[in-house]
Structures are given as C-alpha cells and as structure tokens.
C-alpha cells in the first residue's frame, strides 16, 4: 500500500510527530526541539519499511478522526487499533522508546517471525545526538549522563520534575 503520504514528506513527518506526541506526552514543539524528528522517522522507515509506518500513521489518523464521534478517548482507540495490533504495537512502542532514549530496540522475535526479519533490526543508538536528546532525562528532571550539564551544585536542590496531571 503506497498511500498519498509518500508524496508529501512534510505531511508525513507532521503525522509522525502528532502520533509521537500522543505516545510520549511531549508536545510537538518539544519533540521538534530535539532536532531528531526526521532521524527517528527515517530509522523507523529504514527498519520496518515505509508501508508499515504508513499503516501506523493511517490508523492514528483514523483514530484521531474517529474520536470526535466516539465514546472512547483517543488513548483507548490507540490501544485498540495500534498498541494491541501484533504488527503495529511493537513498532509504536519502539517509537516511544526511541524518543525517550534515542535507541531503536530490536523488535521481538515474535514480530520478526510473523512479519519477516528486517535488515538492521538490532538494538542501536540512532545517533550521538539522539542519545543526548533523549526525552527521558527532562521527564525525570535530569540530564543525559555526559551531556547538557545542569551546572555546579544543581544536584543539591530538589529536582524539578514536570508534574503530569
């Protein structure tokens, strides 16, 4: 399935970011702020193939439209249509993890057995920047070890962990 997404790279990236915002609860602005958007989309495409990514983005799009008329919340729809999907679930979870620590985690064996082995599907750090731009660190009020130092003595103060309602 080669959808119209293929024709419009920036639209595709926007959808990827919108889905990622849902997955990580960081805003699109914050996600873009990492400078890693394109690199992560490329990584995902490169490993599972654009068709699978597109399928995930289509499902997300559909859920987003459906939620208006639905009794379910968007997270509920995403659980039903993506996270519990044998093919898309592991990919979605990998996208979330990638934003948090910049690592593509090897897809589970069950996945490759069902949908075919993929070249390059190993656990790896996407790039040196993806490590330092991991969002896990701001999520816990810390810095990635070895980068973005918070400054002398900052550790003596109580942490500033963003509260999440």
């Amino acid at each position, binding site marked *: 399935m080669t959808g119209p997404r293929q024709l419009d790279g920036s639209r595709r990236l926007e959808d990827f970011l919108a889905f990622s915002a849902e997955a*990580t*609860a960081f805003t699109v602005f914050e996600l873009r702020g990492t400078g890693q958007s394109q690199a992560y989309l490329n990584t995902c495409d490169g490993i599972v193939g654009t068709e699978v990514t597109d399928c995930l983005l289509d499902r997300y799009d559909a859920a987003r439209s459906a939620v208006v008329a639905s009794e379910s919340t968007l997270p509920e729809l995403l659980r039903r249509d993506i996270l519990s999907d044998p093919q898309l679930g592991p990919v979605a979870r990998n996208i979330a993890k990638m934003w948090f620590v910049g690592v593509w985690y090897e897809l589970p064996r069950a996945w490759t057995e069902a949908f075919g082995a993929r070249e390059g599907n190993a656990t790896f750090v996407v790039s040196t*920047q993806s490590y*330092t731009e991991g969002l896990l660190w701001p999520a816990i*009020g810390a810095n990635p070890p*070895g*980068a973005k*130092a918070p400054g*002398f003595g900052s550790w*003596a103060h109580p942490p500033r962990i963003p509260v999440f309602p």
Partner: protein
Amino acid sequence: MIFPRDATRRTDHKAASETFYDVVVVGSGISGAIIAEQLSQAGKRVLVLEAAADEDRSLKGYEGFLSRFYAAASKDNQSPYPHNPNAPMPRSTDARRIWPGQPDSSAYLVQNGPFSSDTTYTRVLGGTTMHWEAKTPRMLPQDFHLRTMFGLGQDWPLTYDDLSPYYVQAERELGVSADVEHQSYLGATFDPGYVFPMHELPLSYLDKVVAKGVDGTFVELDGEQFELSVRAFPQARNGVPNAAYDNGKGYVPVGAVNTHQVEEGERCQGNNNCVPLCPVQAKYHAGKTLAKALQDGRVDLLTRTVASKVLVDPATGRVDGIEVKVYQDPESPQHTTMIMRGQIFVLAANAIENPRLMLASGLSGSSGLMGRNLMDHAYLLSWALLPEMAGTFRGTNCTGGIVDLRAGSFRRQQAAFAVDIHNDGWGWATGAPYSDLVDLVDQQNLFGAELRRALPDRISRQLLLALMIDVLPNESNRVTVDPAYTDQLGNMRPVISYTVPEYTMRGVAYARQFARQVFQRLGAADHTAYDPTDGAYLTYEGEGYVIRGGNHLAGTHMMGTNSRNSVVDAQQRSWDHPNLYLVGGGSMPTIGTSNVTLTMAALCYRSAERIIAQLQDELSARLQTPAPTELPMPTVVAAS
C-alpha cells in the same frame, strides 16, 4: 592545560632506543605520570612507554571518546574506549560464570576462578584515571597496622604519619575537594591549619534525603557504638577553590587538557558521567599531570609501545633494558622489537600489568610473591525505592556516603566497609533507567501521559547503596601468566585466580544487614535481588550475594620490610633489582576501605624522591670509580 603538540612524536623509537635515559617509565597512568613529572622537574631525562595507540591528549581526541560513548548501545564503563588487540583491556561485560577446572579465556583477562571478577582498567594514554570515578579518601591510620592490631593481613612498612606529607602533595596534584572537618574521623588527622585545595562538593538532594533518616542513628558492633552520618566524599574534581589553601595563596583548578588553547569545563557541572568519562574534564585524569611532565622537553613519550620483557643482568641483578614491541596499526600484529635503556626503570603499568610483565620476563622474585596477594574491593549493591521523589540521576556519580564503619575493633572478625550513595540510581545493578523504560513500555503497557507519570515515579525515587568491603591479602589470589594464553602481539595475558576471602564475606553479610536497616529507617522498599546465574554470585551461610569488582587493584608486588615478606621496599624499590621500581597499587600491603588511587599517588611522590636521590648516588659513585665499560652503548635494533 596545554598538552605539547606532537609530544608523542617528539622522539622516534629509533632515537629513543639509542638514548640512555635517566629513567625509563612503563605506563602513562597516574603513577607513571607523577614519577615522570617529578623527575622532569628535577632535571632528569625520562622516557615514558605507553602501550595505547593514542596520539596527543587533545580535546578532539577526548571528544572522540565522548561520541563513542554517546553512540554505544551498551554504556558500560569501557564504552568510550576503542578496542585495541595490541593493548587489550578487560571490560566488565566480559565476566562469565566459571566452572571448576575450566578457565574462561574468552576475554583479555583469563579467569581461572573460582570467582569471576568484572574488574577493569583502561589502557589508553593517561591510563585508568581517564575513566575512574575520582573518589579520593585517605587510608585511615588503623589500616596501616592490621597485623599488629588484629593479627590480620600485613602491616605496612609505613605509618599514616609517614605518608601524610605525600598525601598533601597528591591532594594538590589531583585537586581534591573536601573539608577537613568532615574528614577528621576514626583517627584521621591533618596538619594544623591544613585545608584541601577546594571546598567539599555539595551533597546531592538524594544524599540529604538519606541523611534525614540516617544521621544520628547508632549501630553497635563488637561492643562498640558507632554514630552514623551521611558525609561528603573527598573527590578529585573541580569545585569551589578554598581561598585559605596553601597559607592563603589559594588554589587554581586545572582545566581541560588540549594541544591548543580551548578552555572548557573547569568546574564540575554535574554531568553524572564521571565514570566512564567526564565530558568537561572537571574530573582529574592523569593527562593533566602528563601534560605538565611534557612541558619542558625532558620527558619523551612513546605510544604504541608495549613493554614485553624486563631484561636483567644476571650478574648484578640490575635491569639493563626493557624490551618493547612497537606497532603501527592496532588491528595488525605487525610490530618491531626494540630495547630501551636507562639508569633506573619504573614499572607503572598497574597492579595486574606490572606482575604480568615481570612474570612474562621470568622474574618471579626471591620472595615468590610476584603476582600474589591480588586485592580488589568487593562491592555489594543493595537497592531500594524511596517513599519520596529524591531526584536520582543528578550530580556526580556519588557525592556522599556513610563511612563510620571503616575502622573499629570489629575488624578482628569481619571486614570493614564504606557505603556509597549512588546518584546514578540502580544503574550499576539493573541497567536503570533504560531497563525501567523498557519495562514500563513493553511489560506494563504504559503509553503517553501514564508513562510520563510512571517514569519519575520509578526512577527518581531510586536509591542504590554500594557497600565497598575490605579485602585482605591472600597469597592464592593471584595474577600469573601461561604461554597458552597470549594477545595479538604474542604477549602473555594475565591469568587471574581469585576467591573472595571468608573475612570479606562476613563483612558482606553484615553489610547486607546494614543496608536493610538503612532501608527500614527510610521506609524504602527493598528491591535487591541477586541473580544466581550471575558469574559473580556467591553464597555465604545460606544467603546468596553478587559481588562486583571494585577496580581497586592492589597487592601484587607488595611492599614490606625484607625480601622474604615482600617484593618491594617502602620506597617501592624492588628487593631483587636495585634499579627497578614497581609502583602503583601493587605495592600496597592492604587497601582498607579507601579507594586506592590517592594512596598510590602519595607513594609515587615518595618514590620519586628516592629515585632522584638514587640517581644522584649512582652518579657520584660512578664519578669516583671510573669504569668506562660500565657506560652503556646504544643497542642494535632487533626487528621481528
């Protein structure tokens, strides 16, 4: 700090092999760097031989280490450093379970067991301090007399007071941040008016959370009461300089080392990455001392130069050369063999590589103790989840701990220990926070906002206590060599035989109880679980523990009072070879509960004085009895 550019190319191997140096030093780690720097200051010509492949210590090269670390999927403590088959090094991830009678030779260290240690050291320019954590406590006065006091271990041929002025020198060189008032405990004393170069580093918020529960608690051991408190560790990293240092002259912290002027870092910024690499060089590493040593041109430095044999004149027992294997390409076994000569030789290759080199040269020594008495602190990890957000994963790897049980009469029965409060959470034990993320996403099925709430809840409350437990010398814990195991250049690899002594295990069992008690005090949920399939899993009195390597290697060329009970004398000079010094942790008869490096630095300052005096003595002796044949001739270069 400027590292003279092309310092590693200032001399070439051929020229060096044709030069007769005052002193030839093997190893550019902190021990070798201090010796070289001190001798250079005294006007001596020094050659430093370094096995690693680095070029100059430049910021670019340093950043190369950093990028390698960023990009490494496994962020273990060797991850920044490239693999070099010609100067291989152990990696903590190498350790495997060992089955009786089957040594594990799959990695550089051949582990003969029964205990499989994950201890490491680094063979890069500047040695293991490139990746050390830089805790710098002094040893306690009691640690020097364990045999006399308790009939255990070995006495030092030195006392705390003998070493004290050299501790002062070492604290200056390493730039130690600490407050005397918090370091004067359990008998440790300082000269009146002494202050450390810099004020102590602030305790982390996590430390303070622990302190709330621990400070003022008493424990009883062997009838003695100990009051506990959370105290800042002395650390070799840049903090706030103490204006009162050096009688009010103050202290100027040493920044990054580079081949041209680009200042960076200086003060510790809390990168939480001291191990394996401080990105801003706020942490001391031996490159700083090495850069100083190279300033005035009297020190030659050769890298890609692996010492392979110590050559001894059988008639006099004196060392008359060091055979080296010089390679170009770390991947290729191609090399040239040469001999380097000098008046005095110093082995500063660390407590595993020093005896390895001696034994590979057939020099097991008249005491038979070469390579024996290998010691390394046993680390027991205990981890829990605090009831409140403590902001874990901030600050230097460790700022504070509990050190009140480092000495006491209980040591007659069980090992003393010091406790680190780890600012990097459960990382060492469980691979946190990565393992937490994977669990929350893949197993707990959390997503979006729920995941965001769960992350700090799981990670920012983590408390890990690393209990560092004393290990006493034991002759059967040892480094040997075996021609069956060699590296790419054909050098014999170290073979390690090691058992965690019962005395230490008693300390381990108590330390575990102690950690439980701390957790109970804090209302923290104990999550400690030792995996029986771990290569370092041990049982003692029915309970299982995993013991981690301390990277504080010592004892393998122990100092003592005579050639039967030791390998070197109190100046680290070999009893058998009067112009050979074996320096570093290997000389230490015991390690107590002090991270070893400050003490070895102090010992090296002491040895440097002795070496300078010996050079002087030998020079005047030679002037008095002219014996032209004694003057060495340049040697013909042998190529292989």
